[in-house]
C-alpha cells in the first residue's frame, strides 16, 4: 500500500467537519471547538516531518485533536485552585448531601428511583440535560469528570495531567457525580 502524503491545504475540507464534530462533542461552544480544530491543523503542520504514515492521516489528526482537548480540560481545571481546602469553594460539598451527625443522606437529597429513567426522557433529551448539567459543574469538576468518563483516562493519568493528589481527585469525582445526580433529578429524571 502506498503511504499517503499529507496535503495540509486539503485538511479543512477532508477532515474539518469530522474533527469539528468530535471537538464539539467535548466542549460546550462552537467557537472553542473551532479553535481546537484550527490548533490541531497548525500542530499537525508543525509536526509534518514526524508523520510516518504508519497510521492514517485521519487517525494522526484525531490523536492530535484528543491531545488538544486534554490541554483544554487542563486549562479549564486550572481556572480554579486545586488544594483540598479550596475544593470546598468550587461548589456544594458533602455537607450539602449528607447529615454530618450520622453520614446518612439528608431528606432533601435522598436519591429517588430512576427505575424508568430511560422511558421518562427521550435519549436525545437526556443527553442534552446531562450536557447542560455538566456545564454547570465547577470548572475543575467538569474537567475531571470529562477526562475520566468521556475521554476515559485513568485516575493516575488525570492526577498527572492536572497536578492533583489522589485524595483530591477522588473528592472531585465524588462531588461531580453528586451534583450531576442532583441536577438530573431537578430536570425531570426520576419524576415519573
Amino acid at each position, binding site marked *: 500500500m502506498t503511504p499517503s502524503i499529507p496535503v*495540509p*491545504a486539503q*485538511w*479543512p*475540507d477532508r477532515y*474539518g*467537519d469530522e474533527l*469539528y*464534530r*468530535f471537538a*464539539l*462533542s*467535548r466542549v460546550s461552544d462552537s467557537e472553542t471547538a*473551532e479553535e481546537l*480544530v*484550527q490548533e490541531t*491543523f*497548525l500542530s499537525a*503542520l*508543525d509536526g509534518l516531518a514526524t508523520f510516518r504514515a504508519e497510521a492514517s492521516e485521519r487517525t494522526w489528526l484525531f490523536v492530535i485533536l484528543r491531545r488538544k482537548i486534554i490541554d483544554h480540560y487542563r486549562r479549564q481545571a486550572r481556572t480554579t485552585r486545586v488544594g483540598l481546602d479550596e475544593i470546598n469553594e468550587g461548589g456544594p460539598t458533602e455537607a450539602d448531601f449528607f447529615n454530618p451527625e450520622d453520614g*446518612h*443522606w439528608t431528606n432533601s437529597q*435522598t*436519591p429517588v*428511583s*430512576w427505575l424508568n*429513567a430511560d422511558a421518562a426522557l427521550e*435519549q*436525545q433529551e*437526556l*443527553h442534552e440535560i*446531562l*450536557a447542560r448539567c*455538566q456545564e454547570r459543574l465547577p470548572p475543575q469538576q467538569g474537567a475531571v*469528570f*470529562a477526562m*475520566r*468518563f*468521556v475521554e*476515559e483516562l*485513568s*485516575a493516575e493519568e488525570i492526577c498527572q495531567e492536572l497536578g492533583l493528589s489522589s485524595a483530591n481527585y*477522588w*473528592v472531585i*469525582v*465524588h462531588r461531580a*457525580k453528586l451534583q*450531576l*445526580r442532583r441536577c*438530573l433529578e431537578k430536570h425531570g429524571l426520576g419524576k415519573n
Partner: protein
Amino acid sequence: MLLEQQADQSAAKSMSASLWLHLRYCPYCNRYAKQTVLIAEWAKAAATARASSDTALSEAAKQRMRERLAAAG
C-alpha cells in the same frame, strides 16, 4: 467516594468488603451506586452521539483555516 474508588478498582479489598456490606443495608446508597454508573455511561454515550451528528464547520471557518495553514506553511 468509596464507590468511585471501587469502580476504578482502586479501593483496598477490606474497603470493598465494608462497602458491599454497607450497600446491602442502605437502599439509598445502593440506588446511588447504580446511578453513578448510569451517569458515567450516559456521559460517554452523549458525547459519542454528538460526535456522530451532522453538524459541519462553516465554509467561512474552513476558509480561515486554509488561510492560517497557508500562512504558517
